[in-house]
């Protein structure tokens, strides 16, 4: 859609910089969640520590995006798709920061599970993580390509994550009933499952913002 440049070229540069930062945040958050799940599977405490440290960089980019968006709104008084792009960037930066936080939360639990009794026998949590990560990836692709169809597909995918979370909850209860000594692991895994479910929600939020910025309509209205 957005195509012809602005008469004021500096405005184009500012918009492009902000978009670049959002894409950078998205890539970092996606990588953090993926790395956290790998560290969980491999019980790699050292990698997990790096993920926790790396979250500060995502937070810093979010703060920069906020400043840049506010500045651009103040200086350029954007209208129509420019305004929607900036509003979307502002909201997405907050949402992506949360995705990064969930990656960090998962990483913090690596090494605290006191065993892999459940994980070794049930791959569903990793399957759920794969879908959540794929959703984040697709949402960011949709953002980069301004692709409303891809954004719509992300929202549809969220149902799978929600369903897996529900199934896992039942599995967790069943497992802890049979293996009370795995209670600590299950408590952590339950939190991780909830974090992944929230990552799916936030990827959906990002996709909704992509849809809004491109169409001026809310994707939620289409699904209601």
């Amino acid at each position: 859609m957005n195509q012809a440049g602005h008469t004021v070229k500096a405005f184009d540069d500012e918009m492009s910089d902000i978009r670049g930062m959002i894409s950078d945040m998205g890539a970092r958050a996606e990588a953090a969640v993926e790395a956290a799940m790998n560290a969980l599977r491999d019980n790699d405490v050292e990698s997990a520590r790096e993920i926790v440290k790396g979250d500060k960089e995502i937070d810093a980019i979010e703060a920069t995006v906020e400043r840049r968006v506010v500045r651009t709104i103040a200086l350029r008084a954007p209208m129509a798709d420019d305004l929607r792009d900036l509003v979307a960037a502002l909201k997405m930066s907050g949402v992506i920061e949360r995705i990064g936080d969930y990656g960090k939360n998962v990483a913090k639990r690596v090494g605290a599970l006191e065993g892999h009794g459940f994980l070794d026998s049930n791959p569903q949590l990793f399957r759920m993580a794969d879908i959540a990560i794929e959703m984040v990836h697709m949402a960011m692709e949709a953002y980069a390509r301004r692709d409303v169809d891809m954004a719509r597909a992300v929202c549809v995918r969220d149902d799978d994550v929600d369903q897996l979370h529900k199934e896992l909850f039942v599995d967790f209860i069943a497992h802890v009933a049979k293996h009370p000594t795995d209670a600590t692991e299950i408590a952590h895994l339950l939190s991780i499952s909830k974090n992944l479910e929230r990552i799916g929600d936030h990827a959906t939020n990002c996709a909704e913002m992509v849809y809004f910025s491109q169409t001026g309509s809310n994707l939620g209205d289409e699904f209601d």
Partner: protein
Amino acid sequence: MTDDNRRNEQLARIARNNMGEAAADVPSEPIGLADPKISARGVNVFYGAKQAIKDVSIDVGMDNVVAFIGPSGCGKSTFLRTLNRMNDTIPIARVEGDIRLDGEDIYSPKMDVVQLRARVGMVFQKPNPFPKSIYDNVAYGPRIHGLASGKAELDEIVERSLQRAGLWNEVSDRLSDSGTALSGGQQQRLCIARAIAVDPEVILMDEPCSALDPIATAKIEELIHALRGQYAIVIVTHNMQQAARVSQRTAFFHLGTLVEYGKTSEIFTNPREEKTKDYITGRYG
């Protein structure tokens, strides 16, 4: 062809145009209002051989402030001036089409143009008070139109007009001072008071704030807000933020055509037409 037949035919043509492909998949804001104050249909304006306005149809209601926006030379001021026949003062200007005020054809030979301009007042880009006292600036119109039966009634009209224009508190103790001695913003509000004094139904404003500082501009915008509903107001402005702030409906003109007319909130956040979007986002040209 009678006036009514001609008008019906124009409405039918507009309806046919509205059923075109572009309008089919997008809910189109209707040009027509149920109870328009001003109703223009199929308006063309020529300056000699050059056509400045091409087949413009638009309704202006009492409830909404309407903003005309568009690049320089797009015809927005020309069209504004057709609404109180100001183009009559330009010898080479020729207006075609149908413009009605409360259903009355304003280009009818029977129309008294002086009366029309009292009903459809105008405020210009540069404040143009008469070289007279503040009082006489406002009293001028009521005097020539015989709207006051005596000094007391004229005083009342002057005070009421200055109050409505938000100027009374600043000038009430110096009504005999010259209008030209006021600041630019005060002069513009004096011109608005002068327009209001003859009890118009419509106020046309042609870039009323372009010569004013931000504070004076804010006062005019506040005034437009206060006057909304009492008068039908049409404002031409190059300031997009101003159009977005003061109006409820916006019309975008380009090369003499009306490209898009709709709710201001939609025009500035999600315009239907690519040309409108390019203009309001600063991508035009």
